[in-house]
């Protein structure tokens, strides 16, 4: 029979709860008998008075360190001894990894007469354990407590049994104390937040106004979430979404999964930023029909051919190289880039710059992730590198992204002019929440290109159309909300299907050419258009066709090519 010792510490006012807890343990013992497990309740209050003056700390330490579980219950005060018991248990836990400590505070209305100065001990204790990073629960009555605890105990027992079995086979598997120390401080996003709010200040009115009136924000914990949210909403569309993810991961409790996801998202954020710049330049270049004029150097053409033929997604460094080439093309041909700040960025994307160095380091994080070997320091390092990348791209805080869906036209009898009704979704860090399946409507005097994802600064009619590199899958399929997907790669050597990444979860979305050919004859075509499924096919086929066109225009590649990349 295995015995699990539970140390119950509570203030004297919770006598009834202690009694009920004892009954609960008895009942549980009956249930656990078949599992060969016995719960033994250790209650100090039985002899606390007797030893209060003469007890030795060692005596406590010994008793608590022998226990598997310490359960602390509090209501209006934290008795001197109970607090000490908690401290002892916590110290033993830090040294030995056990006992498991659960702390419960009773909630409920209080008779005013019962409130004494001792209530301050409760507040002080809550603050203390919060500072220690220890989490506590609350309970309203004994049923609530027992049922909360029953769930915890079940999990504990399951783990206990598994550990017991694992111990037989794997030997000692204690937690890595180094990891515990790493977890003690949560450094995630401190650097990123501090640097980015300053970086976007010239480009974001909100950031500037905030910093002007709150120069002390770093010392005011209440304001830090606001700063983070200003950054999330300021960075253009997809980048805001990625930064939101980083901010969220940063708030989590320490775990290996947290570190892993933080690293993955640092890499992904940098990649999305580079993709956005490259796709803006490619779109604009296509507008200039540069490829057909044959003004590209051989190296530049090779880079573009590589991008369009690549049957796997480019790496961060691959996108840096593509960005460099595209900027070269714009500069050499005296073309105005779609984002004027890119001219200033040009020196920063040359080899050896802080920007390219940071990108290379972020690229190398993939190796750490593959080997599943990383530490908090790697997270801190990646955060700093990402910060460098985003600081350089802070001008993106001036830009916005929008997904235009369909455009309606409304002109009725005696109207001097009609209204163009633009149905759209604004893409922001929080934008997935602002979606309802009715979308948003804006009245304009002229149409814009529909089913398009646009990058713009002030007026979305002056825009960079990012299709077919960035698409809104939901808009194309006549669904509400937005599903923004970034071009990833093409199945060049297979079925030529286009692979996109859905920005929310990085999952694969495939666009393939439908076999639903539109009728040539007008009347039949009209009839064909009446079916929404046909129109959906038309939209997705259009993405496919646009990609073929841009590929042909910029890299001179025909669809049928199977030529290998050198």
């Amino acid at each position: 029979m295995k015995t699990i010792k539970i140390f119950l510490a509570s203030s004297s006012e919770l006598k009834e709860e202690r009694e009920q807890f004892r009954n609960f343990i008895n009942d549980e013992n009956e249930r656990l008998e078949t599992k060969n497990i016995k719960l033994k309740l250790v209650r100090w209050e039985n002899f606390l008075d007797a030893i209060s003056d003469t007890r030795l700390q060692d005596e406590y330490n010994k008793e608590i360190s022998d226990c598997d579980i310490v359960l602390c219950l509090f209501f209006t005060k934290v008795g001197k001894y109970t607090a000490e018991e908690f401290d002892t248990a916590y110290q033993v836990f830090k040294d030995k990894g056990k006992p498991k400590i659960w702390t419960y505070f009773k909630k409920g209305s209080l008779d005013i007469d019962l409130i004494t100065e001792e209530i301050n001990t409760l507040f002080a204790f809550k603050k203390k354990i919060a500072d220690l990073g220890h989490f506590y629960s609350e309970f309203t009555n004994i049923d609530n407590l027992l049922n909360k605890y029953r769930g915890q105990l079940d999990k504990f027992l399951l783990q206990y049994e598994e550990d017991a079995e694992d111990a037989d086979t794997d030997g000692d598997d204690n937690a890595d104390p180094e990891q515990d120390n790493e977890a003690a401080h949560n450094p995630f996003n401190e650097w990123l937040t501090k640097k980015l709010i300053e970086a976007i200040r010239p480009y974001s009115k909100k950031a500037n106004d905030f910093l002007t009136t709150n120069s002390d924000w770093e010392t005011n914990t209440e304001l830090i979430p606001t700063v983070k949210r200003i950054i999330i909403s300021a960075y253009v569309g997809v980048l805001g979404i990625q930064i939101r993810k980083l901010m969220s991961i940063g708030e989590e409790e320490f775990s290996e999964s947290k570190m892993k996801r933080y690293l993955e998202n640092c890499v992904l954020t940098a990649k999305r930023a580079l993709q956005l710049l490259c796709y803006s330049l490619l779109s604009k270049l296509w507008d200039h029909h540069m490829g057909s004029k044959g003004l590209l150097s051989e190296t530049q053409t090779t880079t573009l051919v590589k991008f369009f033929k690549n049957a796997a997604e480019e790496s961060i460094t691959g996108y840096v190289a593509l960005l460099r080439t595209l900027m070269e093309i714009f500069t050499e041909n005296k073309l105005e880039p779609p984002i004027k700040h890119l001219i200033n960025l040009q020196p920063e994307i040359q080899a050896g710059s802080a920007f390219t160095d940071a990108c290379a380091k972020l690229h190398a994080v993939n190796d750490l992730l593959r080997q599943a070997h990383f530490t908090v320091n790697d997270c801190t390092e990646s955060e700093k590198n990402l910060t460098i990348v985003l600081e350089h791209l802070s001008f993106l805080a001036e830009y916005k992204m929008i997904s235009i869906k369909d455009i309606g036209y409304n002109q009725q009898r005696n109207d001097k002019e009609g209204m163009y009704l633009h149905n759209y979704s604004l893409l922001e860090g929080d934008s997935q929440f602002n979606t309802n399946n009715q979308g948003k409507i804006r009245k304009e005097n002229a149409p814009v290109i529909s089913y398009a994802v646009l990058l713009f600064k002030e007026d979305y009619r002056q825009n960079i159309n990012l299709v077919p590199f960035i698409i809104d899958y939901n808009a194309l399929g006549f669904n509400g909300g937005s599903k923004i997907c970034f071009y990833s790669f093409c199945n060049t050597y297979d079925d030529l299907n286009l692979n996109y990444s859905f920005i929310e979860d990085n999952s694969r979305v495939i666009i393939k050419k439908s076999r639903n050919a539109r009728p040539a004859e007008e009347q039949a075509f009209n009839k064909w258009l009446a079916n929404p499924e046909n129109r959906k096919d038309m939209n997705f086929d259009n993405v496919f066709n646009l990609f073929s066109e841009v590929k042909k225009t910029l890299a001179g590649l025909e669809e049928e090519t199977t030529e290998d990349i050198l």
Partner: protein
Amino acid sequence: MKKYPLKFLDSYNRDDQGIFFGRNEEINALYEMVFQTSVIVVYGASGTGKTSLINCGLAGRFQPHDWLPLMIRRGNNINDSLEKAIKDAGGNPAKSQRESNWFNDGEEETETVIISPVCRSIKAVYQKSFRPLYLIFDQFEELFILGSSGEQDIFIKTIQDILQSDQQVKLIFSIREEYLGYLFDFERSVPQLLRKKLRVEPMNLEKVKQVIIGVSEYEDSNIKLKAGESDQVAEGIFDKIKGKGKVLTIQLPFLQVFLDKFYLNITGDENRKAEAEFSMNALNEMEEIDDVLINFLEEQVKGISKKLNRQYTAVSTDLTWKFLSPFSTLEGTKEPITRQGLYDRLPELDTGIVNVIMDAFINSRILRFNETSEMFEIAHDCLAKPIAEKRSVEEKAQLEIKRLIKSQVTVKPEAREHFTEKQLLFIEPYLEKFKVTEEEKKWIKDSKDKIQYQKESERLKQQEELDRTQKRLRLVRGLLVLALLGLVGAGYFWLDSNNQKEIAKEAAKSATIQKDSAVSARKDADKALTKVNEQIAIISKKDFEDLRKRTETITNTGGCPVEILSRMDSIAAIHPDSLSMKSTIKSIRAKCK
């Protein structure tokens, strides 16, 4: 270490992704919907696994940093439960002015939107973790089964506020499909409510196969299918559960309970640690089960009663069923209840016995404590129906009455309606059999007083009418007497004096006129009296009929309406239809015997 891969009657959660099978299509559809709208309705029959689909299937599609679910059950009041869930998640609407000025949820339009306290709390929760917030209203039908219209109105308004203020939140409503119609008012206020909805279908053979094969192929599972018999065993299990019916689908809890029984049949290991091989031979050894859940519940009730009876002789199977009754509504859906509520619902049971039975059912995982609502409830809605079906007529009547009382008293006092006499007649015999709150008692008393007052007013009105008629009769009689006296006087004078013949003639003429007038007045009075009598007869007849109807309610539940019969006797005694009435009374008395 091998694990038991079945969840029995518990719903699946995020940690159970490895053992959740057969719902990939629905998970994908639901996941896509999340990016298409802010409001989703998930509906399906009881036991199709709606909660598991959301908590395990959908949750599993999100990374932890993209998913902050708040599960909300109605509890005592859905508005309080929503507020509590948000508060517990860290929603603190009392943000400092310094912070709140810096965030505008609008987009390029900078109009200031005044947001409600709930929306401010949601915003606070979001800013605490930067995780998308999903408010999941589980078993949403409870709002319509157990909630008042006032509660529903407040809730709808709150949802409107949330949606209009563009908060960082999505709403998922999980509801039994038979209650979809109840969403009519809600949809009128929130038009997008039903535009994205997902029906969770019961499990067909293909899905059952996926579950059984998935469970056996799960790496750490202690259940394996015999090699080469996978399809055969899965089909055999499906057939056993669906029984002789021609249905093409089964419900998930039935499958879970059956698989658990199958496992125990093979291993006999209550700890569910031993390894089991599901084979056709083992399946053939399973006895035929008409209804898996009823069979399961009956076994549990019997087992628990038998075990407890050794120590507590009062515990019997009947008593144990009685104990379970408060956990099911009249419609056979589950009804969460507090411990005190349970004591109140079972006043004839000792609280100690109630506690002991409660612990036994919790240990057998049939009852559980819902932390969200802080109430006890049965593990699955599917068990509520068999519990409801076990109730006696008397118990059902009691519940009807309880609901009747509650439905009135939960309404705001100014909007309440008093109980009718018929309702009171139905309510009264049961009042001592369950606990009635002070407010309910008062409302019943007020209703009685009101009826008494109405009756008294009616009686006074009739009395006044009668008095008026009698007064007119007296007047007529007086006139008649005067007329007769006139005649006698005229005759006397005619005999007495010829001289006065002319005078007498005149007098006679006058008397004749008076007589005619008196006769005419009497005719009028007779008519009025007849009319009054007719009215009285109609009223009495109506009273009699009302009373007869009331007796039906009582005699149908086995009672004898002695007081009512006595009142009916007195009406029959003076009524023109006396014979027919007496015959009716006789037949009612016969029923009493």
